[in-house]
């Protein structure tokens, strides 16, 4: 692929960027704070796809790009490269999550019960147009229960394993820098499971949904049921120079298990991501469940879905097609004209002489 340098475009480029930014107006600390507080789910989505957890940076990226999500994620991924990696935290485990929402579509009586948490699952979708007429839409306050919910909930999968419904997970012994990391190693196939799950954690939500939905509609090998869905907060456990492990704070995480009912035992697909984004983790867990024995080139084949749901690469590749391709395009035109001329010459030579 070749590009041709454009001369005389500097002013136009500068002005085009000014035109983009002029529509956004001033970016102020107040605007960033408002985006952060008013759009937590958008912030979560951007942090998950950027693979960088900080609400202020995500809000700033959204403010700076006018909500152009691919650009916002790219900004954050680029900024991330300026920072040193200080540590690798202790692995988060499901039973240690500070749980806000935890439901199962497979079993109604799971140990610990089901809490809906913050959700619009059962809401009427009615646009509050009165706001456009100058009124304030004020949500009804939550009526707290007398007793708090347990902060930690047991694992549904562990309970199923105890009852012989599925094979118990064997805890990994790799920790710290020994855990494979796709930001430092190439993604090769068949992929390490750690690479697969990390790639899905940072994948673009729409891409994961499109391919996961294809599998759910029947273009996969297994139809999923949500075994357990959680929205929670995880402690970031780091180590003091004296060796004491402590929590440097909490981050929001989502995780989903989906289950297949084929065979003698249940099979699980799993996904988790930074931030609260349950559509993404259900779709991603569906892909994980379906990837085993998926046909080559199908939407549920690991190589296919991991390559095509990496948002920065895919959006970057897509938009690069609008950049000047004059040399390659002209080259193709020359080849076309040459082929046409040769064909015409051949046809002429084939004509009988007069």
């Amino acid at each position, binding site marked *: 692929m070749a590009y041709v340098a454009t001369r005389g475009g500097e002013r136009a480029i500068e002005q085009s960027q000014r035109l983009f930014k002029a529509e956004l107006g001033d970016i102020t600390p107040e605007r960033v704070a408002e985006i952060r507080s008013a759009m937590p789910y958008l912030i979560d989505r951007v942090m998950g796809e950027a693979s960088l957890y900080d609400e202020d940076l995500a809000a700033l990226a959204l403010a700076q790009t006018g909500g152009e999500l691919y650009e916002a994620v790219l900004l954050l991924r680029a900024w991330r490269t300026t920072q040193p990696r200080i540590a690798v935290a202790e692995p988060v485990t499901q039973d240690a999550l500070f749980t*806000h929402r935890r439901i199962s579509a497979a079993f109604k009586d799971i140990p610990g019960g089901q809490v809906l948490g913050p959700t619009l699952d059962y809401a009427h979708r009615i646009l509050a147009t009165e706001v456009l007429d100058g009124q304030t839409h004020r949500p009804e306050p939550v009526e707290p229960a007398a007793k708090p919910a*347990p902060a930690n909930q047991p694992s549904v999968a562990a309970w199923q394993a105890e009852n012989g419904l599925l094979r118990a997970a064997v805890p990994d012994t790799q920790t710290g820098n020994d855990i494979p990391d796709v930001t430092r190693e190439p993604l090769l196939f068949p992929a390490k499971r750690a690479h697969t799950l990390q790639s899905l954690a940072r994948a673009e939500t729409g891409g994961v949904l499109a391919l996961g939905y294809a599998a759910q509609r029947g273009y996969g090998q297994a139809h999923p049921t949500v075994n357990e869905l959680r929205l929670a907060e*995880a402690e970031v456990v780091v180590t003091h*120079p004296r060796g004491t492990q402590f929590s440097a704070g909490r981050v929001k995480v989502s995780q989903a298990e989906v289950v297949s009912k084929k065979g003698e035992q249940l099979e699980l*697909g799993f996904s988790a991501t930074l931030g609260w984004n349950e559509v993404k983790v259900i779709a991603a867990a569906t892909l994980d469940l379906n990837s085993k024995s998926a046909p080559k080139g199908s939407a549920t084949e690991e190589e296919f879905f991991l390559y095509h749901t990496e948002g920065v690469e895919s959006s970057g590749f897509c938009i690069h097609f609008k950049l000047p391709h004059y040399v390659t395009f002209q080259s193709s035109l020359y080849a076309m004209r040459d082929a046409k001329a040769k064909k015409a010459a051949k046809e002429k030579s084939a004509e009988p002489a007069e």
Partner: protein
Amino acid sequence: MTDMAQGLPGWTHEAQLSVLARADDMALKAFAEPLIADLPDIEVIENRTGLVMLPMRDTAQGTHFHLGEVLVSEARIGAGGQEGYGMRRGRDLEAAMAMAIVDLAVALGHAQVECLSFLEAASKAQKTTDIETLRRVEATRVDMETF
């Protein structure tokens, strides 16, 4: 850094650090700043922002994988043969330094009553916040019935 670090009665080092890491930033800075005057000369070993990679254990097969990186602020200081350390989520170098100062003060056995009082107040506020959150979560508990 050879002398044994001191602690606070009734507090593990882990609990002390976890509460400081989650303490209100303004309150923490306001508490830590006056401590400096009575501490030995402080050497700042590190004060920076950086990333902590956060792994998780997959519940299907038990595999550890990386969820993504978390922005943190870190401070590491030394004085009087002890080290103070702070790491907090977010981009606030002053808050991380304030945490390190309190950690150092506790390690040196300095201002123990004040540190204890600050930690107990911060811990109580954090527990109250958690309980309020969980009472709101409990209000969404559902008993599914099949027909």
